[in-house]
């Protein structure tokens, strides 16, 4: 691999998928930019009530 | 002995106060002479020059002891060689002696006299009673088939006895159940314990026994009498040796024989005494 590889990743979208990717990357040694267009992360899941089947609060 | 409250709303919260025990006058009727003889021994622990235990003394003083002489001692009785006898009068206020269908009462103290008055025991004894009683006493004493000898123990070296090899073997069968101490009239050891239920607490005295591992357990977790034989040794050394050495008034035993009869594994104070004395 060439030397100019940059050890950072841009993750577009701060929903459950974006957050998960960002966390996994950060935990394995990459610098992550998490880009979200709204004023907070969380996405659609944070607006849900409970999730099946554990009835955990989605928030 | 004491009571207290843990209710934080009370002014007396956590203040220990003696329980006001009204020592109502009471009588023990039919106590055996060996048992009453034991009070003289127990007294040495609760009523001394240096220390007087008010709880024990007050209760003792309020009690009148009306004894019943033994005409048919058991084969395990050895009172005559242990501070007492079937017609022993020590510690009694009245001694009752069976005479046919009635009892003859020998009044021994002022307390006894008062009790007899209250009980309405006013009939005079027959004239020949004194000699009859003496005869009856001789007869009873002659029925005592067991004896112990403790004369040599007194002069033996304490450490030598303590370190003797027989303890482990003699103690083998013991299960540390403490029955011997529970039934012994001369065992005086106790434990002090706080018990709280809801917010009411009492500090009370419980029976305790040197047979229990907990008896000498230190706060550190160390136990100087951790092993069974050490505890068995303590019991017999205390009764037959240490007591003799300390109070110079014989052994701490009245020969009632209960521990022999009730021990579930047949540890017999008579044989231990024999070994110690030999």
């Amino acid at each position, binding site marked *: 691999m060439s030397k100019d590889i940059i050890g950072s990743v841009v993750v577009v979208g701060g929903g459950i998928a974006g957050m998960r990717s960002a966390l996994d990357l950060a935990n394995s040694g990459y610098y992550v930019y998490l880009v979200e267009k709204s004023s907070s992360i969380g996405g659609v899941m944070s607006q849900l009530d409970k999730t099946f089947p554990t009835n955990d609060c989605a928030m | 002995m004491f009571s207290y409250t843990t209710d934080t709303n009370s002014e007396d919260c956590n203040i220990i106060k003696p329980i006001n025990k009204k020592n109502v006058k009471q009588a023990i009727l039919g106590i055996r002479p060996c048992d009453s003889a034991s009070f003289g021994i127990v007294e040495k622990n609760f009523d001394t020059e240096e220390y007087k235990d008010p709880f024990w003394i007050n209760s003792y003083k309020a009690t009148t002891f009306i004894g019943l002489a033994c005409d048919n001692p058991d084969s395990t009785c050895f009172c005559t060689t242990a501070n007492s006898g079937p017609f022993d009068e020590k510690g009694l206020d009245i001694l009752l002696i069976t005479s046919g269908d009635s009892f003859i009462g020998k009044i021994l103290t002022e307390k006894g006299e008062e009790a007899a008055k209250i009980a309405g025991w006013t009939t005079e004894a027959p004239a020949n009673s004194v000699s009859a009683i003496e005869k009856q006493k001789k007869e009873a004493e002659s029925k005592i088939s067991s004896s112990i000898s403790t004369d040599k123990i007194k002069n033996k070296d304490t450490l030598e006895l303590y370190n003797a090899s027989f303890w482990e*073997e003699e103690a*083998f069968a013991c*299960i540390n159940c*403490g029955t011997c101490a529970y039934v012994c009239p001369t065992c005086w050891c106790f434990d002090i*314990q706080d018990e709280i239920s809801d917010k009411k607490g009492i500090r009370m005295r419980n*029976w305790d026994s040197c047979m229990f591992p907990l008896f000498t357990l230190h706060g550190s977790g160390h136990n100087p009498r951790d092993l069974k034989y050490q505890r068995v040794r303590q019991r017999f050394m205390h009764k037959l040796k240490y007591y003799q050495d300390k109070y110079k008034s014989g052994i701490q035993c009245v020969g009632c024989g209960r521990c022999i009869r009730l021990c579930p594994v047949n540890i*017999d104070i008579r044989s231990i005494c024999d070994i110690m004395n030999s």
Partner: protein
Amino acid sequence: MVEYISKIQKISKKILQDGKVDIIIGFSSGSLPMASRPSFIKSPEDADKLIFDGNCGINLANYLAGRKEKIGIIAKGCDSRNIAQLIVENKIKREQLFIIGVPCFKMIDKRKISLLFEDEITQVTEVGDKVIVKGKAKEKTFNREDLLQANCITCTHHNPVIYDELAGELIKEPDQKDGYEDVKKIEAMSSDKRWSHFSEMLSACIRCYACRDACPLCYCPTCFVDEAAPQWVGKSADNQIDVKTFHILRAFHCAGRCTDCGACERACPMSIKVREFTRKLNSDAMRHYEWEAGLTTDKRPLLDNFRVNDYQDFIK
């Protein structure tokens, strides 16, 4: 019986001589009638002191826990079951033991004799199925059958379950029947009735813990009743709740481990039927899990393992 004694003495002498064991744990004659005494014998010469009769009800397994030497031990059915239990529970090693098995012809309850014989007993002799009792003034002959220890009557394991040598012929065990009639009677009571029954029974307890001390299962370095921090139960005999707590909790600690050897009841100076608790748990162990304690050294005790198809209806 006499044959047992000579056989026990012979085996003991031999294994002591051969150095197979350091000590023999057995019974010697006591100083009173019906008071056979647990003793240990160290030299072959002393093996003659060993006896065996209907007064050897004490469970000798109680003397094994934690011993380090090589031990020969006389074992009745219940003793052997408790030995097996102790091996499983890591208290003694099988290799340490030479078990002299004694098929048990049931033990005598000396309290029963005392109740039936007014005089002070001076001598008791067992002859076949009769027991001759002598007092100072009189003599009486009883049927042995009428004097048995309660647990021996319902016992179904008279033969030792593990042994190295037998001191007598194995005997025929009674047919396995559901012998928990006593338990069923108590189970049939209403809970109020049962509670008052137990309350009355335990009111005599003086908290001497002789039942615990006589029990071969009770080997904890510190019993829960002796624990100071936390103090699980109060110490005085006055508090009946604490008395019940002790008895019921102790029974639970014996669940799936008790062999119904009767040591507890035998030791109780107040004649409390403490076996009523352990019997209930034994009957549950049998009913729900087909389990009897101390029959094998290959399996972990009942409550140590979980099988998916275990009875668990009590979990609500």
